[in-house]
């Protein structure tokens, strides 16, 4: 059985999440901070109530916080959880402080090195960091062995830190362009995503637009990741909202701030947010309408054009 398919992978988010996300899965998270978080796919996972998830990535942001807030996450394995000037990811923060969720702290470079080992099919990889830090002195109860220090066979006496490969069960990522068989282009900064996607056992891609395979074959120098690693293509314009998609729209500071207010308050206020903006929206397009609709969308498009 070939692991790679060249058939059309275009499907609904519902089908994609039903097929590739399962209870207990390790879920790779694309995007970072206020940029290109696959919020539309996070909403769908919440609606389907896939639980006991382990989330992994570099800068886990609002998409992670939503899943944590929905009570679906048992562990995060990451470089950072937060939203920069918008403050902490409050549901994440509280879940850790209250001992309801495991946090396996690494560092961005360590995480991307682990995905690199994953995409290369090798079991571990050295990193120059971590040594001397408390990151290696604590590990989550469910982690078997976080890291290992060995002697450098080429320079005895030199200690070398090894970290294990990470191959998530399924990764969710939002990109600018994809074709129906799964070739994708990420425009602008690509963070940890090329490595993450290729390391994952399955990947669900949501995209701003589906373009032809011919487009990729005519611009083959610009393909970020080829179809070999992709399992589902979901077309969802503004799929990263309220975070940004480079070249398409800015993040929405108003909605993010409102989310942060609810997430920080927690309790009823957070439930209200979830009910109104997730459970209460039949579709992601419905969510977008509720958040300001076409007027908001053209404003965010304009803002993006100005910053390019």
């Amino acid at each position: 059985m070939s692991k790679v398919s060249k058939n059309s992978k275009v499907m609904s988010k519902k089908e994609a999440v039903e097929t590739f996300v399962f209870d207990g899965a390790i879920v790779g998270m694309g995007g970072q901070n206020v940029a290109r978080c696959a919020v539309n796919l996070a909403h769908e996972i919440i609606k389907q109530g896939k639980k006991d998830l382990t989330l992994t990535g570099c800068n886990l942001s609002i998409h992670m916080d939503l899943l944590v807030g929905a009570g679906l996450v048992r562990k995060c394995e990451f470089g950072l959880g937060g939203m920069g000037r918008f403050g902490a990811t409050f549901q994440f923060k509280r879940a850790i402080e209250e001992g309801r969720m495991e946090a396996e702290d690494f560092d961005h470079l360590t995480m991307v090195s682990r995905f690199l080992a994953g995409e290369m099919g090798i079991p571990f990889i050295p990193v120059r960091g971590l040594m001397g830090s408390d990151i290696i002195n604590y590990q989550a109860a469910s982690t078997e062995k976080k890291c290992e220090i060995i002697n450098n066979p080429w320079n005895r006496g030199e200690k070398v830190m090894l970290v294990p490969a990470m191959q998530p069960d399924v990764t969710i990522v939002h990109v600018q362009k994809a074709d129906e068989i799964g070739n994708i282009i990420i425009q602008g900064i690509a963070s940890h995503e090329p490595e993450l996607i290729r390391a994952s056992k399955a990947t669900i891609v949501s995209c701003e637009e589906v373009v032809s395979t011919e487009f990729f074959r005519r611009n083959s120098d610009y393909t970020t990741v080829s179809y070999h690693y992709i399992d589902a293509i979901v077309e969802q314009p503004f799929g990263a909202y309220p975070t940004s998609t480079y070249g398409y729209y800015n993040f929405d500071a108003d909605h993010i701030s409102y989310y942060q207010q609810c997430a920080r308050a927690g309790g009823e206020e957070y439930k209200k947010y979830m009910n109104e903006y997730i459970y209460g929206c039949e579709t992601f397009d419905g969510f977008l309408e509720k958040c300001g609709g076409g007027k908001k969308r053209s404003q965010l498009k304009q803002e993006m054009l100005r910053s390019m």
Partner: protein
Amino acid sequence: MEKHYSKNYAREELMSIEASRFIKSTDTVILGTGLPMVAAIFAQKTHAPGVNFVVESGSIDPILPFAPFTVADPIIGHMAVKTGTLRDVLGCLVQRGLVDIGFLGGAEIDQFGNINSTSIGDPRKPKVRFPGSGGANSIASCVPKLLIIAIHEKRRFPPRVQFITSPGYIDGPDGRKKAGLRMDRPDIIVVTDLCVMQINPNTGRLELTKLMPGVTADEVYENTGFEPKLRKEIGEVELPTEEELKILRYEVDADHIYLKEFSKQSGA
């Protein structure tokens, strides 16, 4: 050109300007979010036009017209020579040894220059959880010069951080070497709104090297959880010029995202 010094500034402003002075025009600098971006962009717009920035998210040598909101702000790749990946920046530049300066903030900084951005209390069920390392651990592990900028508060400068997220000298002059870090004696400079402290590699401890105008050593000690030794040649931070303040206020941080508007702050 004659310098027109100004005394109409907030200490936070001078803190950013002073931090920028440690950046040379030939440096490659990796920038964390927040005040490091303010100070670094200020350096590029003033005395260090040739400096090149890299940002963990994958932006290589962007030209930043103003301080971005986060490391993932759409402006972060503006006019970059390459918009790449996290591996390009933290792997093939920082870990590869090609970055001169790491520029970070931090929730806690101790006498050894260790930084905590992880948690207070038992890390498995902390009293306060911070965002975590991001790229800071790798940066602090690999760069030859670490620049830290932070508001001076006693609880922010404890004798020993509760969690070493990013190693300074760990526990003394040989702390890094014993831990296995190749970059075993980096320069560490901490710039606050009260003073400048620099690591003494022979003791592995921060020493007080400069005071902000009008600030005394005692005032620093009162606001610090440890007692940084006084360097013999202790100096005073140079005042900002009117021109510098104008650039900082109206170009770098025009929307006052990072620095409060001076007039409002001072009540002027």
